[in-house]
């Protein structure tokens, strides 16, 4: 089991009701972790995956996860 911190932003944060949370997981990739979160936060199922960052670097959904990672789930951005 890995111990991670998951951060939710904007629409995701409103759906989950939390800005961040500690997570214990066997997920190997960011995509697996997001799918795992759907059962914990059913309201997330209204949204599909958009962008993910790991430890403040933009990442791929197939990026491997490591113990202690900070995983940031971003809904579609809308700056400007």
């Amino acid at each position: 089991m890995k111990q991670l911190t998951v951060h939710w932003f904007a629409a995701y944060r409103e759906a989950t009701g939390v800005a961040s949370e500690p997570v214990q997981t066997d997920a190997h990739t960011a995509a697996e972790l997001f799918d795992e979160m759907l059962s914990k936060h059913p309201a997330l199922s209204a949204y599909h995956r958009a962008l993910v960052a790991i430890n403040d670097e933009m990442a791929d959904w197939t990026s491997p996860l490591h113990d202690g990672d900070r995983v940031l789930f971003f809904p579609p951005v809308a700056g400007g």
Partner: protein
Amino acid sequence: MNPFEISSRAVDLAAFRHSLADPSCGGYVVFEGWVRDHNEGRAVQRLAYEVYEPLAMKEGLAIIQEALERFDISHARAVHRAGELDLSEPAVAVGVSAAHRDAAFRACRYIIDEIKHRLPIWKKEYYADGTAEWVNCRQCATSHAEHDSAA
């Protein structure tokens, strides 16, 4: 001057312009994104930007650096607002000065396009009918719902 900033206060446009002035430059292009009173047919009253600053700053500085490398320009700078904004306020300002205008136009366009696509910034619009919505998120939620009902 800081080439990229996230600011919770109004942009001082005169100071912004002054910081890009250079007697070797013959062209200066500015883009401002204003808070518009409508979006997809709905009347907007105000909006709020949520910014994840650590990554927005890193990506914003990288975009300015890319523009300085790709285009024959002298100076480039951008500011993006965070927090609540009223109608007509500048949400973002991008300024580029260069010896010649073609490079200034192209670099300014590059910077605003990249800012819109790459920065972890989210916009929540508050409508005249009392509702509010995260921009760009309605579509993904809808398509997901359609997928569910088809399943």
